[in-house]
């Protein structure tokens, strides 16, 4: 699902179809399968449905959306350093709506998403109006929000979390489709969170692949000046991309709150690094102009599989960090090797 830069002049002849081995996504799939096979051989418990596969799917669902949130601004060549705090603010908005107005699940979710989108749009507005680097703007926003989240929770709750969740939210955490049956036919062992993340993946994928807005965001990311001269409203697209990033951060915050069982101030604390890791591992460029939604999902899956596998092997804390770093380095190097090989043979990868 890699989006090529649409500003490149047309080739005289269409390029040869990408061979399978040169497709970065295939490389990631092969790596994913290899890692699963490796960990399953070392620890057969890796395939335990209830204790490994279901929690892992839930984690992948949350962190795929976190990755997409960063991807939305990476498309512009921007960064969102406030992704975790936007998630925390969204979770606060959802919690407040439920706590004070007794809002049902859907309304609480909508409120959280709106909060995320607003914060993202605010960041986008500042960046597009002032021309200050997105890194600086979102980092400053992150600092401000750290304080605000803490103050808000202190004012509106008796501590750091809302007591109680909207009806149905606990089911999102505990249930899988296997718990729901039509007659004797029950669903697969997939957590209820997964389809929500899937919808986000599809929408973001379709947006960057087929929608005019999405393509224009990519063009603005590839070359803002050229995009401006071509009549693309670059400022508006910047605000929209940041709003999308905020909205997805909000969704990730909601999913994590569902997964952990509370709307709390700690939501989003660990989002920043994974938000970059998954898109970059999946082939999204940091300089903008090209994104890979499927790659981001695969990148998330690989990271979570590595983490789960090393956990099952019961590495201690220092070894765990060391090996996660080494495995990721190896994964990125292999991808680079594949890229170089593809270039030598004259196929774009």
């Amino acid at each position, binding site marked *: 699902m890699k989006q090529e830069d649409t500003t490149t002049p047309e080739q005289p002849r269409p390029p040869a179809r990408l061979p399978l081995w040169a497709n970065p996504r295939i490389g990631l799939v092969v790596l994913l399968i290899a890692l699963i096979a490796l960990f399953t051989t070392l620890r057969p418990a890796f395939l335990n449905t209830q204790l490994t596969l279901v929690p892992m799917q839930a984690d992948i669902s*949350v962190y795929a959306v976190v990755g997409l949130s960063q991807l939305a601004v990476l498309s512009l060549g921007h960064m969102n350093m406030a992704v975790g705090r936007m998630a925390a603010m969204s979770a606060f908005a959802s919690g407040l709506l439920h706590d004070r107005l007794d809002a049902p699940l859907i309304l609480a979710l909508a409120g959280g998403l709106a909060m995320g989108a607003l914060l993202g749009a605010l960041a986008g507005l500042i960046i597009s109006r002032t021309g200050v680097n997105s890194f600086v703007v979102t980092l400053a926003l992150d600092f401000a929000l750290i304080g605000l989240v803490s103050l808000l929770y202190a004012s509106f709750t008796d501590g750091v979390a809302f007591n109680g969740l909207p009806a149905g939210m606990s089911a999102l955490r505990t249930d899988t489709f296997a718990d729901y049956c039509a007659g004797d036919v*029950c669903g697969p062992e997939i957590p209820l969170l997964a389809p929500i993340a899937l919808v986000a993946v599809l929408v973001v994928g379709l947006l960057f692949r087929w929608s005019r807005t999405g393509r224009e965001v990519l063009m603005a990311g590839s070359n803002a000046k050229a995009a401006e001269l071509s009549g693309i409203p670059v400022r508006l697209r910047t605000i929209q991309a940041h709003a999308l990033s905020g909205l997805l951060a909000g969704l990730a915050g909601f999913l994590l709150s569902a997964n952990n*069982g509370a709307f709390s101030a700690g939501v989003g604390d*660990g989002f920043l690094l994974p938000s970059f890791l998954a898109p970059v591992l999946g082939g999204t460029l940091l300089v903008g102009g090209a994104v890979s939604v499927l790659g981001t999902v695969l990148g998330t899956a690989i990271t979570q599989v590595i983490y*789960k596998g090393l*956990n099952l092997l*019961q590495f201690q*804390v220092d070894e765990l960090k060391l090996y996660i770093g080494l495995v990721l380095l190896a994964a990125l190097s292999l991808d680079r090797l594949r890229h170089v090989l593809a270039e030598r043979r004259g196929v774009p990868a």
Partner: protein
Amino acid sequence: MRPFVRLGSIVGVLAVVIAASACTKKEDTPEGGTSALTAAQVKVALVPGGAHPYFQPWKDAGGKAKTDFAFGDVTFNETAGWDQTKQNDVLTSLAAQGYNAFGIFGVAPESINSTFENLKKQGFHVGSLASCPAGDKNLADFCLSTDVQEAAYKAAKAAVDAMGGAGNLVHLTGNKVDSNTQRRIAGVQKAVDETGGKVKLLDTITDIDKDLQTAQKAVADLLAAKGSQVNAIVTTAYNPAVAAAGGVKQAKLPIKVIAIDDDPTIIAGIKAGEVAATVLQNPVGQAYVGSYALVKLSEGCTMATPGVIIDSGSFVVTTANVATYDNDRAAKTTSLKSDFDSKYLTCAK
């Protein structure tokens, strides 16, 4: 391509809606009633929220419990990295590895009940060690923890005494968005309120228990800015305690330091008269007696009051009792174990 996507989406959504409308939820089958195990079958996992000096005694205490109570195995896993999502992952990974009884220090007290619920649903026994869930409910079998509010109150009282009943007090503590920190702040405030205005709480500095460097910097900043106004420092977290003891000694200021726990520098400080007092907790008792209770529960005993909260003890140590404090702590551990036998556990004869 577009029409196919649209058609596909509509068909997909319709299929999901039709399937969902025909579904009913399976009746929950209680999985908690697992058959009793022999001691040799019980594998205990002691899982703190992350790497921290406080939990290091758990390793040896768990090992001693395994020898004394002859159960199957014990492991100590501190890889959760102060992230609730990661801790949940560590717990399910340990469960997949065959561990069936868990002593947990939850990263997020506000949402840890969800984690306990998940584990109990799978039929495992769970003890909440060194920290209880926020709110009124504890969904673990029991909580064996320092009463943090009481310990902070005792520490602040000791500080008030050390400063002669009047003056300015500063409180150094850990993560503000943690409900235990909120309880500690409340405990200190209570002791200050009791002085009727004679003691003023000059400042409460939070978020400095991340590591020793952070705490040392905060203490250096505090002493540089307000060192001459401060009469006593009360610390309710490990790293700030070590940093305050060292910082005040180095600055040669007449500030009374009330520390927490028994880091060698603190005990040496008490012996040398540089630290006025320290409030000890009972990590050994938590891990040792916690493991014992988990084994008993696995063998078929039940809690007389499920979710009961038990204070593992806190002890004020001054120059008067610095040589003998460990006897008090060992005595408390022994009495905790006999309390489990006589009060908290109900076992078939």
